[in-house]
């Protein structure tokens, strides 16, 4: 969190920043945190999900196709959260 604190300190100390500049600096430095935080949960979730799917496929190889389809569905739903974090990152950083 040091970067955030640093940014806040910079923005507060340097009073000659315009509002747009201050917003840009704050946005740029919080963008990385936004994406990093958004990636934690889905990372754990996808790891767990794929691990369980592999276990299921190893136990019952004949149902591998069905498990795979369901696994992709689950990955898609879980991954959406990380991707929304990524979009927030883009919005904070570049817009």
């Amino acid at each position: 969190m040091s970067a955030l604190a640093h940014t806040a300190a910079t923005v507060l100390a340097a009073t000659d920043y315009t509002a747009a500049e201050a917003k840009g600096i704050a946005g740029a430095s919080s963008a990385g945190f936004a994406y990093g935080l958004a990636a934690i949960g889905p990372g754990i979730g996808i790891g767990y999900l794929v691990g369980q799917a592999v276990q299921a496929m190893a136990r019952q190889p004949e149902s591998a196709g069905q498990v795979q389809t369901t696994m992709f569905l689950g990955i898609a739903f879980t991954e959406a959260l990380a991707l929304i974090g990524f979009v927030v990152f883009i919005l904070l950083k570049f817009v």
Partner: protein
Amino acid sequence: MIGLLAALAAEVPEKVINPVVPDEIGEIFWGALAFFTLWALLRYVCLPPLLKVRAEREQQVLADQEAASAAETQGEQVRRDYEATLAEARSEANRIVEVARVASEAQRSQAVAVAEAAAAEERQAAMADLDAARAQALNQIKGDVASIAISAASKVVQADLDLAQNQSTIDDYVNQASGTR
């Protein structure tokens, strides 16, 4: 080269675009046009022949499978018939062998019986001959013994012994001797 590229870059009008929000209407317009055209083309032009062929192939596969299973049943039937014929033939052969065996057995026992009967008859005849010969020999021996004994005895007593008188004694003795033999 770099000058050309710089000139190219300078020609690009400075228009800030949003990387996330779809603010270029043209992209949506052409994208929608392309997608819905593709959908319509696939729906009405491109896919029907392929789907028809697939359905036909499925029909064919089903028909072929049916034919194959029919042929299989037929083959099974043929096999069963053949097996039935085979079993029949085998039991027939068994029966024939059994009949032949019984017949030969009867023949054999008959032959044995005939042979045994003949043998028994021959033995009977031989026994009768033997008995007759023995009785004859015995009678002859009886006469010889009596005369020898009388002559011997007359030699012993120095007198003629009458054969007729001592006949009974000799007979007794011979009988005893033949009895004890």
